[in-house]
């Protein structure tokens, strides 16, 4: 399966009465997209705003971050099973409006979280302070139940992102990258002398506000399975996850998975990147045993020599991560696991809720309990009402001078567990 990913570098976003994409500048007529959002009767109002790197702007609470993309050639469309049909994606040509993101904001439930600061000390801890953000703030109709409203905002985000992506359909990309994965027989002959490497990605899958969807299927219900690494580039995996801002994977991260990108960079040179294995992190312990048994089986079936395992979330998935690591190593397949840590504000607590000596190769995205002071921002997109209730924010979070004393936990993507950032800990 071969995919050409064309990146169209977005230089600026401006509101104007006519939506168009011209020499890297995205002109957006918000009215055009408001209809797209309000077509779902569960959303009562939507407003659009723009936040640029370096501005004194805070976006909160953040629900999801999505990169507008369009499938130019090849089967299926972006966000299969959600917006597009269920054809298998991951081949042909896809264009991405790179350097920008659609950020869905506004509370789903009363304790929502997720902060993106476009400047100041907080900007260093989120990848989304470096993107031009078109922010979509929704408010629910009264009496709408949280489950239904979460779904409404999630789907609205994908519809708008796909629509904006269309603007890039006929634009010549500034950069093109070609990704190719052969089937197991072909790559065995071609790369017989290279170690066979896989990526085991654990997807958050516990319930309301904690779900991930694969081709529209709730990850809670899947048995671990195998994807071509290019399928996630077309939005095969999307986030319905709104909690634990620092280590949940927004859809943007699924679309731009850095483990997949860095494995492809070595593909055919120092390793043979064979497959993208996905599994889940259910609450029920017997489900964890079943899923980790299956991932270990898949690693053996594919004849892998080594895998990178990434997790998503806090506490519960630590047990799946350790089970996956232990069982895969027991198959003689070497592992490296990527996680973040909750070592307490003083850094002295045990970082993970589970542990095993088999996990001897760990990459960490940092301690999510680290305390940080975020200065007052001139402008807030969304609302500050919930700031005090954000995970990691102690009751005296909002200071008199308007600054926030919070933990990294509340910053979207701060301690990402797919290795997307450079933050670490020792």
């Amino acid at each position: 399966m071969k995919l050409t990913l064309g990146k169209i570098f977005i230089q600026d976003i401006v509101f104007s009465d006519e939506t168009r994409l011209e020499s890297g500048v995205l002109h957006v007529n918000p009215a055009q997209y408001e209809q797209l959002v309000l077509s779902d009767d569960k959303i009562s109002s939507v407003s659009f705003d723009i936040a640029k790197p370096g501005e004194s702007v805070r976006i909160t609470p953040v629900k999801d971050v999505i990169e507008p993309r369009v499938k130019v050639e090849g089967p299926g469309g972006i966000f299969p099973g959600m917006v597009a049909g269920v054809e298998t994606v991951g081949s042909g040509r896809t264009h991405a409006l790179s350097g920008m993101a659609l950020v869905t904001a506004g509370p789903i439930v009363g304790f929502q979280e997720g902060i993106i600061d476009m400047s100041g000390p907080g900007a260093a801890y989120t990848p989304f302070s470096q993107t031009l953000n078109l922010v979509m703030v929704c408010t629910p109709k009264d009496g709408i139940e949280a489950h239904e409203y979460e779904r409404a905002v999630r789907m609205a985000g994908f519809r708008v992102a796909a629509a904006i992506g269309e603007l890039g359909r006929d634009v010549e990309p500034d950069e093109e990258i070609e990704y190719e994965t052969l089937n197991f027989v072909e790559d065995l002959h071609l790369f017989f002398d290279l170690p066979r490497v896989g990526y085991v990605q654990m997807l958050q899958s516990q319930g309301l506000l904690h779900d991930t969807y694969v081709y529209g299927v709730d990850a809670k219900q899947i048995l671990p399975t195998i994807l071509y690494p290019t399928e996630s580039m077309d939005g095969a995996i999307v986030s319905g996850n709104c909690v634990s801002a620092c280590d949940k994977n927004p859809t943007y991260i699924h679309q731009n998975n850095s483990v997949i990108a860095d494995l492809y960079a070595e593909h055919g040179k120092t390793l043979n990147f064979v497959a993208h294995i996905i599994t889940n992190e259910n609450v029920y312990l017997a489900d964890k045993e079943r899923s980790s048994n299956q991932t270990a089986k898949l690693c053996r079936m594919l004849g892998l020599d080594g895998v990178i395992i990434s997790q998503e979330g806090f506490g519960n998935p630590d047990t799946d991560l350790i089970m996956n690591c232990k069982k895969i190593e027991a198959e003689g397949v070497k592992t490296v696991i990527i996680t973040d840590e909750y070592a307490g504000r003083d850094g002295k607590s045990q970082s993970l809720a589970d542990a095993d000596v088999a996990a001897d190769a760990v990459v960490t995205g940092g301690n999510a309990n680290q305390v940080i002071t975020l200065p007052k921002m001139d402008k807030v997109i969304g609302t500050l009402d919930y700031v005090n209730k954000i995970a990691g924010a102690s009751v005296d979070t909002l200071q008199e001078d308007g600054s926030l004393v919070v933990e990294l936990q509340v910053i979207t993507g701060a301690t990402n567990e797919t290795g997307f950032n450079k933050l670490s800990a020792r």
Partner: protein
Amino acid sequence: MRCIAGKQEDADALYGPASFLLTGPSKGQRGGCVKYFVLTNNPMVCEKAAAGADVVYKPGSIQGIFEEAACYIAQGHRLLTHPLSGSVKPGETPYKSMLISSDALQNMDLASARLISSAIDACGKFSDKSGSYTEQTLRDLQLVDVSLISGAMDSALVS
């Protein structure tokens, strides 16, 4: 704990915790009918629990629920769900529900002991914010907890 033949759609009743279980010989944790009770401090679980469901309601903090669970584990009961379920952290949400095996083995289940101990430890890592919530927010948090535990009950049907 009543154990009655149940149908999948009963279990699918949105947020009605499954009080019906497939009958069948109980082969321990895997397969067959896993008899369990729900330990919770979430009032909504009681409201939505179908008649006959075995719910032990113990109002109080999450740490209190963990310590209560630890007592059951010390008597040989097994945890069926992860105590740190849900990325909504202790202190951020005041609610926690857990499934615990009704049967008690002679020796304590070490995995359950390890999980409940690290869960009690984890409580120390987070400051308690639940005091500043509105009634509606508390209902939202209760709903999230019910969603997490009813998902686990669905799994318990087929485990």
